[in-house]
């Protein structure tokens, strides 16, 4: 299983903060994004945003990053702290 978490505006748009899904057929962040976008129109729209950032196990990564079962993947908008 892959744990997926969402933050800030993204969490609100999806009305979801966390979910788990099978790692079957998912090799990279791009694969996971495509699968999530497939859920419905709303999710498709949200994941079409090219500015979204992603992290695997608390490290920022690109779409090509390989992922595997047991990983924690996060999607979130560009950060605005400080």
């Amino acid at each position, binding site marked *: 299983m892959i744990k997926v978490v969402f*933050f*800030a*505006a993204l969490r609100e748009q999806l009305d979801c903060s966390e979910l788990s899904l099978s790692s079957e057929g998912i090799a990279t962040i791009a694969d996971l994004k495509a699968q999530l976008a497939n859920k419905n129109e709303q999710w498709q729209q949200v994941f079409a945003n090219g500015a979204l950032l992603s992290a695997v196990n*608390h490290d*920022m990564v690109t779409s090509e990053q390989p992922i595997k079962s047991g990983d924690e993947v*996060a999607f*979130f*908008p560009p950060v*605005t702290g400080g």
Partner: protein
Amino acid sequence: MMTENTYPEISIQTADFSLADEVALLEQDNAIDGAVVTFTGRVRNKNEGKDVTSLTLEHYPGMTEKSLAKIICQAKERWRLGRVKVIHRVGELFIGDQIVFVGVTSKHRQDAFAANEFIMDYLKVQAPFWKKENTNQGEHWLDAKSSDEHKAAKW
């Protein structure tokens, strides 16, 4: 299991902090560093023409600490630093409230000035914090500024 002391140089907290106390900790039993540079970020009353009433700060527990620890390590690779402390508040903050503190000591001022600015510039673009602004015209999530990306890229 992550304990409170996993990252002694980093604190993510809802509570306020005291600049005087933080400076005292940076200076205590520290005779070798002649320079102490601190930065404090506060909530402004106006942003992009709107009257701000408060901010709500969200973060990604775990990743926040890890990303700040990485930024501090990078700063230590580049400059000769003594002590470093980074505090970032989360939750609801009001006008004039302190949001962020970066304190750095070194033997001489150049290293402390540069490292402090470097840590702030990188925190702005890499640490997973998000601000929701509550204004007289409603609430909204702040957009990241490209000027912040440029500042971090110049290092």
